[in-house]
């Protein structure tokens, strides 16, 4: 046999293998999509109402706040950090927007709210990046501080949004091309997040910092500045989530987002991000958000009591994360 023919043949099968391997690795990278599909199919069996337009748009509206915050959390988690203050900053944002609108008008009020949220993130980020304090502790402190401030300025009670805010309320309740306003904001945030992470220099640096901070530092890249940036983004997006909450409920409430930080972290982790940093992406994070939203919805439709829902949610979070690690675990 002609030896060159042999080599070309083995070459072909090899490239065939490589192709299969590539497909497999893509499939594994986005297995969150598969999990979501399975859940959706399961949901359609649980209740025929699941696929109704009002129900689907309801889910997407409900997850908007968590979804917006999860993009900021993803950035923070990619650097190897964590932000426990997002739920509280959302509450501060919710109260602040409702309070400022009557005095300063819609656009100034919303802008100011976002600035305050970003500033909260800046404070945490500065302590973490410059003073080298632990993210967990710093953002835990920010969590109680922001919640406390929200309680103080609102006297602990919800604040009705007055007249100039009508446009905000309309936005929260209307749909655009069939997409509810809050959902639209969430999707835009995800697109911006995806662009920043994959096409911007800063996004690449953030990812690299989580993989090997020292190597990035010794490449002459300003690490602290980028870490700080992720916390500012997270704070700003949390305030945005607070505004969205106000637009949906019509009131700014200091009790908004209690426990949301854990849901957001769960969504990011279900989306395959590693809390050690360096791993995670926007598409998978969105899937994580939707998975949590669909599970909650299924249980509501099946009228599972609230306390039981918490238990089920916890079990499913572990199952989802296990199913991603599963392949690697069995190969060992």
């Amino acid at each position, binding site marked *: 046999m002609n030896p060159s023919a042999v080599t070309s043949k083995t070459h072909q099968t090899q490239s065939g293998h490589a192709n299969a391997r590539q497909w497999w690795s893509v499939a594994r990278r986005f297995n969150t999509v598969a999990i979501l599909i399975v859940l959706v199919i399961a949901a359609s069996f649980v209740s025929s109402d699941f696929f109704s337009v009002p129900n689907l748009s309801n889910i997407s509206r409900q997850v908007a706040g968590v979804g917006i915050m999860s993009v900021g959390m993803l950035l923070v988690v990619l650097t190897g950090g964590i932000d426990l203050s997002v739920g509280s900053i959302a509450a501060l944002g919710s109260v602040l927007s409702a309070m400022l609108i009557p005095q300063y008008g819609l656009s100034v009020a919303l802008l100011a709210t976002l600035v305050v949220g970003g500033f909260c993130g800046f404070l945490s980020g500065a302590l973490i990046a410059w003073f080298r304090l632990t993210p967990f502790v710093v953002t835990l402190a920010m969590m109680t501080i922001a919640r406390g401030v929200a309680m103080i300025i609102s006297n602990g009670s919800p604040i009705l949004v007055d007249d100039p805010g009508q446009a905000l309320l309309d936005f929260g309740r209307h749909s655009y091309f069939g997409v509810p306003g809050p959902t639209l904001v969430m999707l835009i945030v995800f697109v911006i997040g995806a662009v920043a992470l994959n*096409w*911007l*220099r*800063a996004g*690449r*640096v953030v*990812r*690299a910092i989580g*993989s*090997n901070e*020292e*190597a*990035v*530092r*010794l*490449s*002459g*890249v*300003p690490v602290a500045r980028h870490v700080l940036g992720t916390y500012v983004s997270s704070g700003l997006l949390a305030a945005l989530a607070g505004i969205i909450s106000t637009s949906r409920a019509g009131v700014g409430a200091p009790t908004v987002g209690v426990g949301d930080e854990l849901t957001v972290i769960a969504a990011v982790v279900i989306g395959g991000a590693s809390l050690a940093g*360096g*791993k995670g992406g926007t598409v998978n994070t969105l899937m994580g958000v939707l998975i949590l939203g669909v599970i909650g919805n299924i249980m509501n439709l099946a009228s599972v009591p609230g306390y039981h829902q918490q238990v089920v949610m916890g079990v499913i979070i572990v199952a989802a994360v296990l199913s991603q690690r599963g392949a690697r675990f069995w190969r060992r």
Partner: protein
Amino acid sequence: MIPFIALTGVDKRFGGIHAIEDVSFDVLSGEVHALVGENGAGKSTLMRIIGGGHQPDAGTIKVEGREISFRNPHAAMAEGIAVIHQETALAPDLSVAENVFLGALPTVIDWRSLRTNAHELIASLGFDIDPAALVETLSTAQCQVIEIAKALSGQVKLLVLDEPTAALAPSDANKLLEIVRRLRSRGVGIVYISHRLEEVFAIADRITVLKDGKRVDTLKPAAVTMDELIRKMVGRPLSVLFPERHATLGAEVLKVTGLVRGHAVRNVSFTLRAGEVVGLGGLIGSGRTEVARLIFGADMRDSGTIELNQQLLAIRSPMAAVKAGIGFVPEDRKGQGAVLSMPIRVNATLASLKSVSRPGGFLAFGRERAFVAKLMEQLRIKARSMDADVSTLSGGNQQKVVLAKWFHANGDLIILDEPTRGVDVGAKVEIYTLINQLAERGKAVLVISSEHQELMGLCDRILVMGEGEIRGELRPADFSEEQILALSLRRVPDEAPAALIH
């Protein structure tokens, strides 16, 4: 007399590296047996085998005549073998007494007797240290004493000391030698590893020389002079081919004056010219890496000035150093050099991201791919594609990726810390060629290496460091392994040439 421990024909490989080859070694009770050799000669591996940290691939270990195989350090400890490593392994937030008895703390602690016992044990070594003091408040010498006391808290019959005096001032070192003598008189066998040959001659009953993983000789100190011992430690044939050099020297690029950082770097001054390759030699821990990190701004200097192209630099961070035109390849490739879990492409452009992005901070992927493709060709990086993670590459290719980071940066100075560590011979030669190319392009290159052959083959000059100082400068005419080793051991050989400045 049956030796306490006897290793016969011990062999150990790590992947392609033959760390220990057919070594026989024994220690009698009440004897100090010194182990000497260059960096990488196999001393640490042999020490770990004795302490149960590594299991030999072949050969036998006998303890008091019984054949034994240690599955882990615990099994060795049960036989009365204690190893004290170079870096102390004490818990800094615990008290002296707790540290001394850490391995054998009772469930309920009787603080008074714990402290009394610790104090007595330390006193028996001739030291007086408050047993209630926190370890983090102690000096390095005191920590060494605690380490030894900790080992003695169990039944110790063999004590392995790895460079116990490396971090000690001379007076403290003498005290430590006194402890070793006391232990010997108590019948404890001691394996003493040290680069300080004066100490070895002062204390050892026998000396074993290791070279390239093999035992060269075992002899009594009276039967050998220090020069003969050094000759036995070095003098291996030129095993690697070094490419020819064509670089021409240009203007002075780097001038370092009076650099100081704690005790690690003491008053270091030198200059570097364009197109020049200068080596920093010396033993591990002699301050070479610290000097590099100070120049690169990775650590802060206590005093001293750094001038680049006749301009005084206020470097306070690696970012400032890179901006000024300095590149740095750190010795710890996995921990500090490469982002292993990211692709070659990302690693290669990490130090020059601005040059592959558009205004507004958007990455220009086309330009980046072209840039990286060219680098991979020039540095002959072998990989499936530029999108392969660096962790999937061989050590040599990983190192080339780290080098690629600086290859086309616009800098004038590049610092390479152990550029060929963990790299096979073929890749070594390629890296040597790249270093020469950098010099030919007019860059000043500072190379740190523990391989003397490498320094002699690559460099125009070698600065030899010891204990944080530059001990001397060697020109090619004076290059020899004996010279480098003698300078780093602070011993000027009898035939010292005039060029040997101190």
